[in-house]
Structure formats: C-alpha cells, structure tokens
C-alpha cells in the first residue's frame, strides 16, 4: 500500500492530486497515516505508531484505518500498481 508519488500533502492537511487537479482536506491523524504510507510502512507499523501516539485501542484503529484506506482508494490516491508488485 503506497501513496501515489506525485500526490502532495502539506503539514496543515491540504492534499493535492496533480493528475486530477483535485484538492482534499485531511485531519492531523490522516496526515500522519499518509506520511507513513509514503514511507511504505506496513499496516502493522502504522498501527503501532498510532497506538503509541493517540489514545485509542487496536480494534478501533484497525477499523478506522481500513475505512480510511478505502476512501483513499476511492479517490484514486494509492498506487495500486506498486501494491501488486509488492
């Protein structure tokens, strides 16, 4: 699971996809996850990082993480080709 190379995200949470010209607003925890995806972290590593930083439990985050990934895929922000190769 990897973020498309040309997708830009600012610290303030503004995400821009130059391929489609569309912009998005992302909340701080979403920015954290996107940056971790950019670094090609595994879901386990992402979960470990988030659970260490935010007051939540594994089940809640796992559910929300998969929901978030689903929306990123829906907006075509993930590089599915990279994923297939992996």
């Amino acid at each position, binding site marked *: 699971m990897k973020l498309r190379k040309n997708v830009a995200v600012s610290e303030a949470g503004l995400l821009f996809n130059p391929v489609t010209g569309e912009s998005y607003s992302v909340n701080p925890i979403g920015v954290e996850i996107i940056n971790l995806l950019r670094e090609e972290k595994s879901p386990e590593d992402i979960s470990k990082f988030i659970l260490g930083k935010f007051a939540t439990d594994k089940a809640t985050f796992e559910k929300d993480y998969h929901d*978030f990934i689903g929306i990123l895929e829906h907006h075509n922000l993930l590089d599915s080709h990279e994923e297939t190769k992996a």
Partner: protein
Amino acid sequence: MSKTRYERPVIKKLETGMPNKFGTRTEYEPMTHIDGVAVKDLIKEFGSPLFVISEKTIRDTVKKAKKAFGTRYPKVQFAWSYKTNYLNAICNIFHQEDSWAEVVSGFEYDKAINLGVDGRKIIFNGPDKSEQDLTKAITNDSLIHIDHLDELYSIRELADKLKKRPRVAIRVNMDTGVYPMWDRFGFNYENGQAWDAINKIMHSEKMELVGLHCHIGTFMLSPFAYGTAASKLSELALAVEQKFKHEIKYIDMGGGFASKNTLKGSYLPGTDTNPTFDDFAEAISTVLLNSNFKKDKLPLLILETGRALVDEAGYLLGSVISNKRSSTGRRNTIIDVGVNILFTSFWYDHKITPAQPFTHYSEDTCLYGPLCMNIDVIRESANLPLLNMGDHIVIHNVGAYNMTQWMQFITLRPNVVLIDLDEKPHLIRIKESLENMNSMERVPSHLTFDR
C-alpha cells in the same frame, strides 16, 4: 506523557460552487453541560439515551411569552397544553407559573385534577368526551369547549340531569389564509355552523356561553393568520353581545406557535426564521384592541401555547453505537436514540451537538437510530464533527410531544431527568423495564408452560 485525543482519520474532497445537500457545518462548540451539569455525569448516573429538561429554560420561556402578551394586552391567561408534555413535574412547573390546564381527553382531565388543578381552571377540548368525562367536567365547573353538535346536545341533557348550568365555549374553525385549513375540529365560521351552534346554546339557556375558541394549525409560521382568526372570533363575540346582550368572557386563540426547531425541507434554520412570541402577540393583540369591544369589556385572552413554551427546554442525550459506510461511501453513524422515542425527527431536522470536544473537521453524515427498522433515521443528512464509538451527543429542542408521543417499540422508554434552578438533577420519570411491560399482559393458561 499523555497521549493525544484520538480522532478517526478523515479525508474530504474540497468542492467549490453550490452548497451540497448536507448544508454547511453548524456546530462549532461541544455541549458538555446542561444548566451546569456535565452531560457525561448525567449519562453515567441515569443511562443513555436520556431525556433532560431544564426547569430554568421553561420558566424563562414562560416569562418571555407572558411579557410579549402582557405588555400588549391587559388580560392574558395561559393554559398549559397537557398533550405537549404531561409529565407531572412539567405540568406543575407551568401551574406554578399560573397556567391553567388545557386537556383533550378524560385521561388528561383526571391527570390535571390529580395534580390539584382547580376544576374551574381546566379547559376541556377535543372531539372525544364521554358522558362520564362531561359529567365530571360539569360537576367541577370546568370550561367545556364544544367540538360538535352531538356533544352540544349531550351537555344539554346532562345539564338537566345534573341540575347545573355548564360553562361552555365553542371551537370555531375558519379560513385564516393558510394552507392546509384546519376544519376538522369545531364549527365552521364561514358557512355559518359556528353562528348556528352559538344560537342553539343561547336559545337553550341550559348552558352559559363564556368563550369562543379556535386553534388554527400547528407549527404556524405566519403570525398574520392569528390576526385573521382573532378578527373573526371578535366579530362573533360582538354579534352575540348585540343579539343576546350577552358578554363573551374570553377569546381562546388555542396553540400552534412555532418553536425554534427547523422543519424538514427548510432552507434556513428555525432559530433565524420562525416568528417570536412578540410577533404572535402583536398580531393578536392589535386586532383585539382595534375591534369594537368597549374598553371595560375586553375579553380575557387565553393562549394554549404548548410547543413554543417547552420545546427548547428539552434535550435528548445519546451515544454513538457505530460508524459505518453505505454502499455509496456515505458516512452512516448509528446512535442509541431511535424514532420510537424521538417522534419529532419525522418533522424536524433536530440540531445535534457532540458532548465532547472536537476538531474543526467534519463529515456529511446520516444518523440512524438503533431500531432494526429502515425508517429509523434521526437525520438524513447532517454535516457533523467526527464522532467515535461511545461518544455522546445532545439533541436539542425535544421538549414538546416526544415525551407524550413516544412508543415502547423494540426498546424501552428511557429515564427523564429535570435539572432544577439550583442545577440539581431529579429523576422525574423512571425508565421502563421488562417487568413493567409484562405486568400489563395476561397469558391464557393453555399457553403457559413449565420451565
């Protein structure tokens, strides 16, 4: 080091141009307390969901309404509409604020009597008054508002039987220029039914015609319609005086004033658009003062305001059960408040506020209740801050009709708490239990079995 508060990750496409059907975001501050009492403490002590009523808001609203009418017209009397909320504690707040009782059934009549309301200060409305109900009302010298001719004749017979002269009014329906016209109850003004009923009462001499009553609609957004109604009732009262030399003591304008809720389909919120007490008072009192009543013969103005006096005092607290997505990707949130206890969600887009801090991120959300029924939708579309499972929400303006029209359906009806003027919560209605429900049932012996 303490961890950061968790908020689920969210990404939202930025769109410019026309606003979407979910509207703009309206909630900027959480509602953590009601009258100084923490929402989380209320839920911890009394459970979720939970109705909470603010005594302070009720009393403040009554004062506002009294001021609006009292400063414009010299003789005003409010009568608490029992059907709007007949929890005993709530009725007693209104009675302490000098309201009479306005009831529409034998059950409500008995409730008022049990609460110690003087029978002479009970207005008995409605189309269904049994002989037993009428006998009670006549014996207690209550004000009986006649709905139809069959009732008129029944009262005439009972007056003979009881050797009493009942105090009566007639309910008049009329065209006030609003649609739909409410002509189901009472006698019509335009086609002469009302005048005919008045003549029957006056000629029989068995009853004392003390008032004229109307109730032109519900959640009325036009104060001018009340002006039209007041004008027509004044004409009738003056006609009675001219023909029979009989003074009509009061004009009862009924209820129907809109609260600050937002009707479904409205473009702007009710808080911005719905008329105030001053608007209604101006429309009614101007007509009465400008009519041909002599200065010392102005009729008492009775108002049966219900919804507008109690809606804002009621809150419904709930909790988030789950977040999920629909097949189209829409955010669906399930809460533990269903339409069975929030009947008014069929009419209004209730304002909903999270009870804990949140960030400025929001999502277009559909709020579902907990019932296993497709119709159980609390808000079809609301732009809400991100809610986590277990978070609490506050639903506003639920004081009217919900605690009378609620249903025991699938789930049990919850506790109701009143927060008094000293910011102390009191349990005023205990939540239902399986034992309560079973105690009303009987199982025939051939259907019982030994466990």
